[in-house]
């Protein structure tokens, strides 16, 4: 089995990218303005594609290079740019104060979730010989923070980006072993993601037309 040791340059770079990705997830959680929220998500994806590139270089894997480039192009540039265009120009939305909790509460909850992620996936609990084991709790924490962003944000587009943060967390976890993660599966996950974003955007614009606002707070028709 090909592996990275935690002390090799690539291992250190992967760990470092994981930390930066976690910090950017916190930045998303704590940003009140919509354009910053989207920008932090874009930055997170760029760091993720860098991590994929590092793994691709270390494993000499062409498929991983393809994934790194696709991540950069679609998640790092395509989605943030089109989300900004949709939000700022079509929906004329400057800021999203629609949080269901205060900012500080959600940040504290985020800290608690990160601690929880370390509790359940601390490296000692994982099988021995697992490369870059430090990345596993980091990616778990990013998944939980993305879920938290989906819960506390009221706007549908913000919830969508929350889901994309979750997806980034999973992808970060997959990279650590990705040289042996089958390419067809990775590519399928990527396709699902793109199709998911497209179909969600169709619903968001449909809702915007119907309700004059696509905030999930307005979605009150179906209860019980």
């Amino acid at each position, binding site marked *: 089995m090909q592996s990275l040791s935690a002390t090799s340059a690539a291992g250190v770079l992967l760990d470092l990218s994981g930390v930066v990705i976690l910090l950017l997830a916190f930045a998303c959680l704590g940003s009140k303005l919509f354009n910053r929220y989207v920008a932090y998500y874009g930055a997170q994806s760029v760091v993720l594609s860098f991590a994929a590139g590092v793994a691709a270089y270390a494993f000499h894997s062409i498929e991983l290079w393809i994934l790194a480039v696709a991540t950069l192009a679609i998640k790092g540039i395509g989605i943030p740019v089109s989300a900004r265009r949709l939000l700022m120009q079509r929906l004329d939305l400057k800021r999203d104060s629609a949080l269901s909790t205060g900012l500080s509460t959600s940040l504290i909850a985020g800290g608690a979730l990160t601690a929880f992620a370390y509790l359940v996936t601390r490296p000692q609990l994982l099988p021995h010989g697992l490369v870059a084991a430090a990345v596993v709790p980091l990616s778990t924490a990013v998944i939980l923070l993305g879920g938290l962003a989906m819960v506390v944000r009221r706007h549908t587009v913000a919830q969508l980006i929350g889901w994309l943060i979750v997806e980034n967390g999973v992808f970060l976890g997959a990279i650590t072993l990705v040289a042996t993660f089958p390419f067809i*599966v990775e590519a399928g996950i990527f396709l699902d993601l793109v199709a998911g974003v497209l179909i*969600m955007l169709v619903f968001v614009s449909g809702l915007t037309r119907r309700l004059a606002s696509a905030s999930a707070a307005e979605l009150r028709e179906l209860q*019980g």
Partner: protein
Amino acid sequence: MILLMILTVAGPLAGTVAAACGARARPAGWMASAGALVSLTCAVWLLVTELHRVPLRGWGGYLYLDSLSCFFLLTVAAVTLLASVGSVAYLSAEQDAGRLSAFQVRIYYVFFGLFAALMLAALETGNLGLLFVLIEASTLASAALVGLEARASSLEAAWKYVIISSFGVTIALAGTLFLYYSASGLHLAADYRLAWPYLFSHAGALAPQSLRLAFLLAVVGYGTKVGLAPMHTWLPDAHAEAPSPASAMLSAALLNTGMYAIIRFLAIAHARLGDGFPRAVLLTFGFLSIVIGVLFMIRRGNFKRLFAYSSVEHMGIIAVALGFGGLLGLYGALLQTLNHAIAKAVLFLTSGDVSLRYRTREAAEVTGLLAAVPVTGGALLLGSFAVLGSPPFGVFLSELTIVRAGFATSSPVFPLLLLALLAVAFVAFARTTVAMVTGRPPDESGLAAPRAAAVPLGVGLVALLVLGLWIPAGLDTLIRHCVAVIS
């Protein structure tokens, strides 16, 4: 044989192709039905010829078919056939009434075929990563069906469905990842790293902590698709807002596909971790779902929501049966899956006919069905009693098996609790449906359901009756083989 497997998956795409090429409602519907018939025939054929032999494999483990996949293929293909025949009648009536445009009907058939094909494909793969990919793709295809009518409420339901399910399934992907981690001590060839048969046969060497997390995440993740409480919140909305044949597909095919994924994880977890942990997880989520489903069934409102909460309850029962385990528990769970699928398909198709006739989905506004439309009313009444588990229908037999399994494998508290909840469910559900069926019909009349709509109802009810009186030897052998595959 590989060709047969591909044909099973490709069958429903006939409707997609026809609709994409611009066929009208009726021809597209008949194409979809013919395709579903091809799928069902292939599934039966695979069953008859391959049952006693080794599992089929192909394409480096991506294509994999054993008895368990065969059983679920049969269920999903049968439901697809019932729902496509139901679609022909329902959609053309809606289009004639001007409630759906020709474009919406085309969209419906495109995504209906895609949805069915993706679910069937998910049942034929042995690679757990690909299983995720296909289940997530089927979510996206069915979201288009939920939002088809483009009212504010159906868009809201579609949004809720797609965002909650996508998140849930992503959690299941994290579970798959942890399963992958737990196997990192094994030196497997790259192709086998996510292959279920390989992981299952080497379950003894998996790392237990990581596997425990993997199982829990998979139950929570795929449980979102199954509709296990508390992840069920999308389910009543999506089922109520989708066109009725699509609701039938959601309830009777999609939920089962999710349960299939859970069973795959359960088999690995059970082999490594023993009885305790998987049982605790499944009983907790199972009983919670039954309680939530039953509580919401007491409220009288939209009858499609009532059927949806009954699905939550039934998925809970199946989870509980899986938790009880043993031959009886697993046998009961699989039999319940088949019975519930047929019964719920019949009920949702009936609900389509009712809403055509009465132009409402509120149970309180529907009375006198039996007098106004005897076929629909009769099917609703018989279907309700079938789904509630009265003899002589199949659900009675499977629920009895599950209760027996409970007494055999765990403390008597659990099966007794199950029985009590089933009794409450019976009263809550029948109270609403009996009131719909009896009484005086309203004076003004809406659209009559086309005659073709009665065909799937009759076929489904006869199947339920047969399954209640007699389990065919072939089915019995198949279910026993399934149990052998996963234990």
